[in-house]
């Protein structure tokens, strides 16, 4: 079981991720923007962070910068999820300390694969 924080401003996608992971044994914490995300991360100290890039207030890059600058959080892998699929956007993600990149649209399989890769845990597929 992994503790996952997911930052995404679109409520539709929040709902989608919640349904995609509800059959897994992962613990999911949702945040609507970068500021809320940072609060949740500080509180939950998750195993993995997913974050959108374009969000009101603190965007995904700024959130990643802040997480990486805090010693007790810096080790947590960050995966950017974005509809920006260009090479430059992906490179920018790595520059901000991202460990991986997932482009929208994504499937439940894509999401679980990333979680498994970074948390090294065996998760049950929610759609078995």
């Amino acid at each position, binding site marked *: 079981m992994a503790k996952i924080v997911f930052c995404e*401003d*679109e409520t*539709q*996608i929040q*709902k*989608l991720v919640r*349904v*995609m992971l509800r*059959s897994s044994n992962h613990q999911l914490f949702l945040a*609507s*923007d970068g500021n*809320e995300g940072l609060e949740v991360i500080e509180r939950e100290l998750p195993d993995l962070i997913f974050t959108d*890039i*374009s969000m*009101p*207030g603190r*965007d995904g*890059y700024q959130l990643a910068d802040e997480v990486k600058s805090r010693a007790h959080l810096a080790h947590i892998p960050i995966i950017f999820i*974005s*509809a*920006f*699929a*260009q090479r*430059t*956007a992906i490179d*920018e993600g790595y520059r901000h300390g991202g460990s991986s990149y997932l*482009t*929208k*649209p*994504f*499937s*439940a399989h894509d999401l679980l694969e990333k979680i498994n890769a970074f948390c090294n845990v065996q998760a049950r597929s*929610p*759609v078995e």
Partner: protein
Amino acid sequence: MPLLLMGPSPAYVPNRPLLVYLCTLQIGKYKKLVGQLMNRDEISRTHALAKSEPQAGAMPTDSPIASGTTEEERQLYTLCAAMSQGVVCIDAGGEVVMANTAAQSMLAMTLDEMQQRTPLELPWHAIQDDGTSFSYESHPVMQALQTDQHISGVIMGIYHPKEQTYHWLKVDVIPLAGATEYASQQVVAILQDYTGPKHTQKALDVILAMTDALRQNMHYTTVAESRTNTETAVEERLAHLICHLLNCQRVGIALLDSDTENLHLIFVMGISPEHEYHWSNSLQGVRLVNFLGDPSLVSQLHSGEVLSLDISVPLFNDQISYKRIAPILFGIDLVGILIIGYEHAGSQLTIEEMELLEGMSRLASLALVGAKMQHERDQSLTELREVREELARVDKLKSNFVAVMSHEVRSALTGIQGFSELMRDANLTASEMKEFAVDIHSDARRIVRMISDMLDLNRMEDERIELNPGWLDLNAMIVDAVSRIRPTTHSHLIRMQLARALPVLLGDHEKLVYVIMHLLANAIKYSPDGGEVVASTVLEDGSVHASVRDHGVGIPAIDIERIFERYARTDTGRVVSARQGLPLVREVIQLHGGQVWVESILGAGSTIHFTIPFTNNR
């Protein structure tokens, strides 16, 4: 007495030392004799020889030498008479005592007319190289008499009344060494024809001035105001040269606007500032045909003819003057005129001077060709640069558009793909199935809306969009929009502060509803923590001022200017705090003649304002 035909040779042209020696040794002694000889016999020969240029060394066919003269005297006489240089002997008082045939021809005067007169008293008009008259001190004969020094190489212009032109002479004046019983001091003036070299030199000066002008890359623009001081200096020099070369008192250079046929004065030079002012006023901005007063004169200029206008053609309201106008042609097009003015009616140009004037107008044309080509080249380069910049702008817009649109479509597709996958693969309840189908439908609608926005924008860009105006009540529209948007949020308090008695406006109902809905939706979206959203209207002078205020995240200062740009992104590819539909909001408001702007404090919220004028709609 032996003639010293041989001996030490001074550094003069071969004929001159001989003559100098002859004069030095003999003239003083034989002055009386020579005078008598000249008096008695030369006059009859002068006219015959003046017509056919005497050749140096050629012996006269007749022998007018008086009996009783010695062999040396005869040789002296023959030599003087046959020389191609003019020889004038002047006594200590400055009076002419002798002049040979060539001198009489060059000075356009018989010996009779010259004798017993000083060069300054003579009825000829002599000018210096710069066009001014000789003073007593500056005249080479007087200088030689006073200083006893050899005066050499003085350029002198002699007016020939019959030809109404100046003949140019190079004058050497040599004091005679031996004072005699007849006179204490005498001088001999040696005259050489300098008209050819003088014209060549002047023409060369003009060509050099023109070459200079070309080299300095003169820009002959059609607007005189844009010309630089350097260019004016070049033209001033040119005008001076023309004045000097053609002995005129005024010069004007004007270009012709090919579309309007109006003259644009480039330069004017006259004898006084008043004249220059008159010429400037008469030339600037005047149509060529109005200036000349006769269309046939314009036609003559177009065909390359130089116009000689007398007093009957009053071109300027200044003093009486006589003018020549030479066309400045560019290929077969008349692009300008060169005007010269004389104060005297008698100033007829010689064929040579007319050719020179034509030559100068052709040189001016050449200068124009070069300058025009340069101007066109510069213009083409500017246009090319502008096109390149526009292409770069469009290219950036296009790539931004692709990036932003793909971002939006991918975001919407995330829901469609994800929820449909779940419906296919996961165990869902019937109500979940229905809920997800609604979500899919909503995302599909979002894509449709995006495409429709995009098409609207394109349509507006192509100026094909048309407002469907009708009378509308903006307050009622806001009330309606708020009631529609309230159910979409539970965390926001949406309030209205609407002006009372708002006048009805003329506008496009559908498009203004779009504007209000977009502003409200953005206010909700960008205040994720909820809070108050206020829609308000105020009646201002001539317009209704509406605004939507939120207490949300605000907009970074660097993005405020770009928030209404279409598909704006930062250098890192991030979308500029994209507020959906704002570019279209701006387009719609601007089409209504209004303005739209934003106020924002990062972290404290934003207010988007717009105005719709009502006075102009009536």
